[in-house]
């Protein structure tokens, strides 16, 4: 048994963390994707999982989503152990995972449909979130008629429309162009402020992580582990435009690069 992890005192009110992972290990046959990983995800914050590709970010996110079983360890969401996907979590996929034969509004209302919400009600809700992500007017368009950035907005609206407390995002902006990505990052900051949700955000971009995160968990491979947790604080209130020029922002980017560079071939 592994005893290196100090146990925190058991609290019987609503826990501080929306999500906690306890001593998660995951093996794919011979490949050890995660080993004994413990992390806390505070409520209402955006926490990034940052690390080189292959270090197990997607694996960890899917374990939290309940899409993958850990080999050992457990995940708690609001103090309840995760045994599978649940209404408290929604997922935004790297490849969007839209249904190509369904219109934007049907794609966005898919989660509500699976929850048994009546058609007219779910389309009302979906239409509202389609407007919120800036796709008003495209309700009846099909995914192949949209640009990559617009498709991911559909994926985002689908995840928002089920009103889950935890949003799991797997490199959601990696497949969109640079300009769109910047706009997305700004919008995401607004979303974190306005929606009372916990965001777990996987990225391999250092700048992106520092720009959007309240906390950054840096994951390193071989064996996969949490290397350190960084909490950018000083520049969040300076406004979207000034963050990228802020000295603290630039320092943190440098600092992260310094710890990651040895792992990049």
């Amino acid at each position, binding site marked *: 048994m592994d005893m290196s992890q100090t146990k925190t005192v058991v609290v019987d009110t609503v826990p501080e963390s929306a999500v906690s992972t306890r001593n998660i290990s995951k093996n794919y046959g011979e490949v050890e994707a995660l080993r004994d990983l413990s992390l806390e995800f505070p409520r209402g914050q955006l926490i990034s999982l940052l690390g080189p590709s292959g270090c197990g970010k997607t694996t960890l996110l899917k374990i939290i989503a309940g899409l993958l079983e850990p080999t050992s360890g457990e995940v708690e969401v609001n103090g309840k152990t995760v045994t599978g*996907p649940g209404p408290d979590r929604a997922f935004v996929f790297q490849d969007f*995972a839209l249904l190509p034969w369904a219109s934007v509004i049907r794609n966005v209302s898919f989660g509500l449909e*699976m929850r048994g919400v009546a058609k007219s009600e779910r389309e009302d809700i979906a239409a509202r979130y389609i407007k919120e992500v800036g796709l008003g*007017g495209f309700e009846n368009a099909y995914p192949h008629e949209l*640009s990559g950035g617009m498709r991911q907005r559909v994926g985002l609206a689908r995840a928002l429309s089920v009103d889950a407390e935890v949003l799991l995002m797997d490199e959601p902006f990696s497949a969109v162009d640079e300009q*769109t990505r910047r706009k997305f990052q700004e919008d995401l900051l607004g979303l974190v402020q306005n929606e009372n949700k916990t965001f777990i955000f996987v990225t391999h971009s250092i700048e992106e992580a520092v720009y959007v995160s309240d906390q950054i968990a840096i994951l390193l491979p071989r064996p996969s582990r949490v290397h350190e947790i960084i909490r950018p604080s000083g520049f969040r209130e300076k406004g979207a435009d000034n963050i990228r020029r802020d000295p603290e922002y630039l320092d943190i980017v440098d600092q992260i690069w310094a710890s990651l560079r040895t792992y990049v071939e």
Partner: protein
Amino acid sequence: MTNAEPTAVPGAPFGAPGTKRPLPSRALVLKIVSALILFGAWEIAGRVPVSLAFPTFLESMGALFRMAVDGTLWTAYAETLQPLAVGVAISAVLGIAIGLWVGLSDFFDWLFSPIFIVMQAAPLAALIPLLVLAYGIGLTSKVLVVCIMAMPVIVLNTAGAVRNTPESMKEMGKAFLASDLSIILKIIIPAASPVIFAGLRLGISAGFIGAILAELKITPTGVGDIITYSRSIADYPSMYAAIFSIILLAVLFLNLLEKTEAVLFKGNQRGYVSD
């Protein structure tokens, strides 16, 4: 500002909303033109003549008209359509059901796939005597011939398409709390439907061949009888008229199937997101 006009989305360019697909009437014109060319070539080949046993297009159409008027054609089809309709219906329903099953379960894949692969590869003409031995010369044998021709490609296409449903779409379904049944009905089947329909088209064409083959090889009845009989008395226009009518029927039926697909799965003609 009307809502129908897409509003510009910052940072999200929308490419050429005005691009139109070719009008359906143009496709129709093309079909008619290619049919005319084909019939023209047939007429010329018949007039040259390529062979004494090869009638012209107009002669064949004359024979077709004659058979339609005197009722031979309709009595023949009343006979031929029985094994064809029964066999195609069984193949489509059972074929898709088994295909879904095989595609969804490794066990049924292991159990059934070899049977259908063998069925697809088997030389049917060699099997017909065995079928006749076991089931006689009646409807059963003919239905079986149609099924042997039609079913394997339907099963194998359906199974393959089901197995190839993108993993990320199924994962999306699970993440948004879809039940296993919903994942099959709302994700796997729509995703597989273009390939299932392609299998149906191939299977049904093969079923038509099977129905005629059964009538030529088991007992001459229906359209097969017209072909056999008119060849034996050297009435080649009637023989070609019968062959032409069965091809025409197959083409019409496949077009009907295409329309059905377009109604059932509207997204299928809209192209797929490839990236």
